[in-house]
């Protein structure tokens, strides 16, 4: 249990007019110091909810963290008061979100938004924070940082705004950075710039990262370990090289097969998974992927498979061995 963060058996639900949404159904994951964990899945699979619960960013109600624990530095973050949580959030654990325009305050200067974090959390003086903010902007590769300090968010491009978000997230040297689809709204050439930047910063600052994305290829670029989520369950977890070389859950397998790649030509039709992901209001009994799975056996429809060890440091929640097609 030497991990930086340990999430155990997290269950999160949302009450809506239509009924209860089972957003996260018993997710357990951990991140070590300096490690990058990729969390992948399609929209509505619970990837953002499970990670945002960690930092108390799920609005309750309508959300409800039904059970589970989030251990960070020997404390269960779920038991903390909002005030105590606010001290950790932004200082020890920092966040970067998908849309840099809506996460930045449009009427405050870029510099002020970065330095504020430091005056609040670290008790720095205005002058110190000002100098440090310029340093950070420079580190993010923003040209003429001293001049851009007094600019407003609308004067920056999308990629530059995301750099500003990262600068303010890193202001207090957090030990964990949570990045929720940080490059999804950006063009690929800008995404490549940011991935390079984050990779470089991670190595220099020895910071752990949880990177949430729907894009498997982005995970291949920078994660050390990957969790694949489906319908609120973690269905597979492995080292990034193992996962791509030998996916052991049928869902991961079909995701990898159905996405066309720039480096390969597929002349046949694409491999298509039939149907659509289940509605988290009405999850099927048994394995949530069973109705779409070509490997499913009777047991899959009756009993949900637990996430269990299927290889060295490789866990999958599946009754079937995808190599032989027989029950494990």
């Amino acid at each position, binding site marked *: 249990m030497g991990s930086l963060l340990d999430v155990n058996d997290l269950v999160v639900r949302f009450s809506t007019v239509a009924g209860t949404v089972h957003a996260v159904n018993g997710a357990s994951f951990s991140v070590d110091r300096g490690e990058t964990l990729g969390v992948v899945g399609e929209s509505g699979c619970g990837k953002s909810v499970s990670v945002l619960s960690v930092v108390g960013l799920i609005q309750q109600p309508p959300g409800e963290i039904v059970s589970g624990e989030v251990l960070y530095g020997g404390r269960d973050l779920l038991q903390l008061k909002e005030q105590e949580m606010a001290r950790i959030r932004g200082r020890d654990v920092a966040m970067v979100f998908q849309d840099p325009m809506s996460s930045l305050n449009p009427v405050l200067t870029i510099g002020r938004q970065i330095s504020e974090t430091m005056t609040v959390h670290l008790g720095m003086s205005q002058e110190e924070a000002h100098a440090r903010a310029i340093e950070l902007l420079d580190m993010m590769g923003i040209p003429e940082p001293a001049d851009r300090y007094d600019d407003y968010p609308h004067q920056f491009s999308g990629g530059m705004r995301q750099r500003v978000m990262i600068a303010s997230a890193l202001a207090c040297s957090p030990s964990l950075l949570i990045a929720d689809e940080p490059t999804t709204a950006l063009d690929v050439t800008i995404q490549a710039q940011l991935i390079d930047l984050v990779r470089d910063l991670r190595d220099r600052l020895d910071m752990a990262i949880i990177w949430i994305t729907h894009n498997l290829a982005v995970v291949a670029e920078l994660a050390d370990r990957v969790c694949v989520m489906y319908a609120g369950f973690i269905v597979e977890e492995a080292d990034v090289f193992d996962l791509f070389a030998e996916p052991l859950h049928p869902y991961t397998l079909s995701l990898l097969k159905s996405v066309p790649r720039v*480096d390969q030509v597929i002349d046949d039709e*694409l491999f298509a998974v*039939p149907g659509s992901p289940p509605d988290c209001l009405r999850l099927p009994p048994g394995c949530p992927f069973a109705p779409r799975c070509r490997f499913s056996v009777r047991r899959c429809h009756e009993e949900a498979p637990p996430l269990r060890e299927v290889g060295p440091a490789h866990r999958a929640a599946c009754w079937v061995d995808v190599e032989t097609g027989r029950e494990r």
Partner: protein
Amino acid sequence: MSQEKALVEVRDLKKHFPITRGVLIQRKIGAVRAVDGISFDIRQGETLGLVGESGCGKTTTGNTILQLLRPTEGQVLFEGVDLSELGGEELRRMRQRMQMIFQDPYACLNPRWTVARIIGEPMRVHHMAGRKERIRRVKELLELVQINRVHLNRYPHEFSGGQRQRIGVARALASDPEFIVCDEPVSALDVSIQAQVVNLLEKLQDKFGLTYLFIAHDLGMVRHICDRVAVMYCGVIVELAGRDPLYEEPLHPYSQGLLSAVPIPDPAKTRARQRIVLPGDPPNPADPPPGCRFHTRCRMAEERCRNEPPSLREVAPGHWVACHLV
């Protein structure tokens, strides 16, 4: 441009959007040059991919070809007929032969109309069939896009994203078109659903001999579905080639940077490759840089690139590049 028969010919097409100032007396103070002089052919039965980053003018190109936006300058010939000269009834008759599939399956279907009415509308507008015949055709089209025909009286909200996109495909097919502009047809869908829709588009193309202009930013998907690919940057085409030459040996520095920026779902391969990271951001199309529009981000730019805009030249059979250094 080619020996094969061109269905659509685009000639020096421009679409500028005026920037105005003032409320009562509006003065034009500039223009966003969204599409700024592009020429290419779309051959009968092929899928031509149009790729580029957001704001490069791909969607405006598609809309201007279909005359949903009227061009500022230039021509669009459909089977030799100049669409930009047509208006009113003549244009409407031509439109029956060209359709569009939109990006957002939630926004492009009228939420108050039943599926039968949505798919039947193009046939009604073009006086193609009476009421009974329309219903029969709608059922046929639903079957074609793999949606149960008994669902014809349902409303869009009763369908999933993938199903809605298939309804959009059925509507595009309703007027029996020859040419379809697919504007990011799968990018709003989840990855496991994208393959279903793309396979359907390919099947329909074979079945009806359709010609597609496939606008997308997903370069992997474009490699899979397209025969030829045009790369756009800031309102102009910088490279146009067959699929394999473009992906295996891109010649324009922008195409090279763009392709090498796409991550590959293979950790060993993607981390080992030498990536060309393009610095900076794409320029503002309201104020494009002089000379080659890419010179501000190009690692090879010379004096000439800063002053003189390169023209699109054929450097190998069927491979067109707009770069002074190629």
